[in-house]
């Protein structure tokens, strides 16, 4: 009886594993394909897109990186994302601390006000922001991206960080009070360090979302030397002809850094992201 049951379970297990192996192929094959095509010449791509490249033709990469300005684009993306990340961590956690730990009448209202941002798509503010930024010199300016990125990162940050601050034990704050700490010290020296996980999570989410953002960057930036990575990709699709091989190299350049970071931190990222979501 027992034997039979074990046998049955292992068949189910094998089926489950087979299912996940197939899933993995569906997930990895497109990425491996683009990697292989990116080393081909335009001619090779059209004759047999699925054969392995005959030789490693790295000119595609050199061209995309230099003439295609992907190098500059990557620096721009990095600049925008890091600044947004730092500002959103700072501004988000101060608000969350005030909402999560301090006692004031309007805290509920302010929380709802910020949470509204989660429901509002960026498209709805695109035109007013575009026209106004053009007037104050913020269009075609990386700060013109940072401000809306920051704004749209705040709701998630506040959502998650408020959860973290609320879950901190009361005794800590109380003993700090008795020691004569000011409220700013309680925030910066006691509560913030204890919510490091939360900061890490929100930081990651902010970074990933802004690193990949296309619409705002496309509308607000016109200067080639100020474009971010997702926008620069579309440059290879020309009106009269498309340079396929360089396009593929550009796709690889755009996704490889994220893949590397993901592989290095995958467990923290995955645990962190879910921890954050569940906390809320």
């Amino acid at each position: 009886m027992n034997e039979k049951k074990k046998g049955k379970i292992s068949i189910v297990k094998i089926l489950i594993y087979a299912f996940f192996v197939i899933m993995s192929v569906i997930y990895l094959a497109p990425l491996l394909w683009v990697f292989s095509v990116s080393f081909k010449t335009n001619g090779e791509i059209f004759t047999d897109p699925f054969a392995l490249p005959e030789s490693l033709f790295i000119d595609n990469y050199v061209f995309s990186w230099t003439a295609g300005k992907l190098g500059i684009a990557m620096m721009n993306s990095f600049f925008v994302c890091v600044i947004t990340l730092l500002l959103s961590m700072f501004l988000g956690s101060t608000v969350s601390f005030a909402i999560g730990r301090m006692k004031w009448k309007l805290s509920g209202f302010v929380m709802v006000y910020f949470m509204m941002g989660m429901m509002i798509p960026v498209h709805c503010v695109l035109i007013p922001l575009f026209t106004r930024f053009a007037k104050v010199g913020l269009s075609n300016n990386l700060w013109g991206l940072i401000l809306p990125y920051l704004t749209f990162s705040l709701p998630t940050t506040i959502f998650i960080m408020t959860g973290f601050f609320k879950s901190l034990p009361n005794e800590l704050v109380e003993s700090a009070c008795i020691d004569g700490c000011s409220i700013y010290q309680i925030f910066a020296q006691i509560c913030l360090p204890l919510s490091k996980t939360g900061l890490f999570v929100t930081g990651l989410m902010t970074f990933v979302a802004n690193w990949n953002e296309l619409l705002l960057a496309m509308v607000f930036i016109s200067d080639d030397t100020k474009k971010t990575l997702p926008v620069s990709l579309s440059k290879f699709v020309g009106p009269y002809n498309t340079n396929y091989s360089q396009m593929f190299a550009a796709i690889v350049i755009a996704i490889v850094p994220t893949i590397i970071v993901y592989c290095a931190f995958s467990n923290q990222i995955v645990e962190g992201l879910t921890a954050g979501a569940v906390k809320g």
Partner: protein
Amino acid sequence: MKKKVLSILLTVAMTASLLAGCGSAGSGAANSGAADAGAADSAAADAGSTGDAAASGDVEEITWMFWDDLEATEDLISKGYKEVIDRFNQDYAGKYHVTPVTTNLEEYYTKLNALVASGEAPDVFIVSPGPNLTTYVEPGVAADLTPYLDADWKGSFSSDAVFAQQTYDGKIYAVPLNIAAACVFYNKEMFEEAGAAVPKTWDELIDACEKIKAKGHTPITISAGTAWCLSMLAGYLCDREGVDLKKIDSGEESWNNPKTLDAANKMIELSQYFQPTAAGDTNDVATAGLYNGEAAILIQGSWAIGQINGENPDFEQKCGVFQFPEIPGGNDPNRVIAKSDSLAMSATTKHPEASIALMKYFTDDTAQKYTAEVGGKIPVTNVQYDATKAPAQLADVMDIFSNASSTFGFYNESLFSTEAGSTFDDNMVAIYLGEKTPEQAFDDLDAWYAANKK
């Protein structure tokens, strides 16, 4: 209470300074607001990399806006423009300096409009004639160039006719740089093999397609994935049928009329000779179909010459060109679709001399010679160029162009707005895909005009 107010003020001040910091750190254009602020900014960036003499305050800085990346481009005409810019900056070093502002074609007008709206319009910018140019002429964004042209410039152009699409009420608002004509490119070998003659009339075209098809080749390669390519064919058919586009666009005639319906039915008849993937193929793929010897006929603008010869140099000698065939009983068969790139000058520029000097560089002999010999487009001046250096097909195109009785624009660039043009394109594709009958499509166009034309 006082404390509370104070703290609020403090926070406001903090935020305000944060915002202000953003504005000034970014471009420096926030306060000065003038068009040259942006220019000075980019010039400063430029000076760092090229070591130009921009640091001395005497150099007049201008900007030139263009729809292709001058560094990354493969397009021969764009490469020629880069040479013009470099030559200008070299010759005028210490006096004038131009900085190109480039985008891709897709975003070009978005960016241009944003700059115009913020008072930072580029001094000189490229624009397509037709509704696009009209949007800049009507609100006074583009400057009247007639005085400059009349002074000592106009004489170098091949004829006054080149300004036809740039003239509003007798005033010229943009200068054409080159002309491309839409023609029919064909594979001479395939025609010979099939025993087909170069068609002069509609029936001969059908006959040639039939013979080529019998030999097992695809007669026509075309792109419906890139809508304007199919729309170009529809435009030719309509014009050959004698459609009066001006009357339709102004509302005197309706889209749904016997001539447009005939044209649409001819397009459907011809579509049986298209390559099977025409619906999904992009412009590139369709053009590749000709130079890779997969199909015999491509209806395309002469800008494709550079691409064809560049991708497959062996094809240059096999490639013939003919005029779009006549439809007996229809319109004058010597009319040609032509398209020019044009330059306009901002009406608010602070440096009109520098801007005009730059524009003259685009139409001088060196630039125009390049246009013909390398770019494969028709020059706008009477420049003498070496025909043996120019692509083989250009001679045929020049022939067709100089024998043309008159030219007309792309249909989608001849209507009252860009959106009207796209709507026309979309409906032509819908007819080809069999999604709409010609009657439905033209009724829809009429309905769209009724709803959108003011």
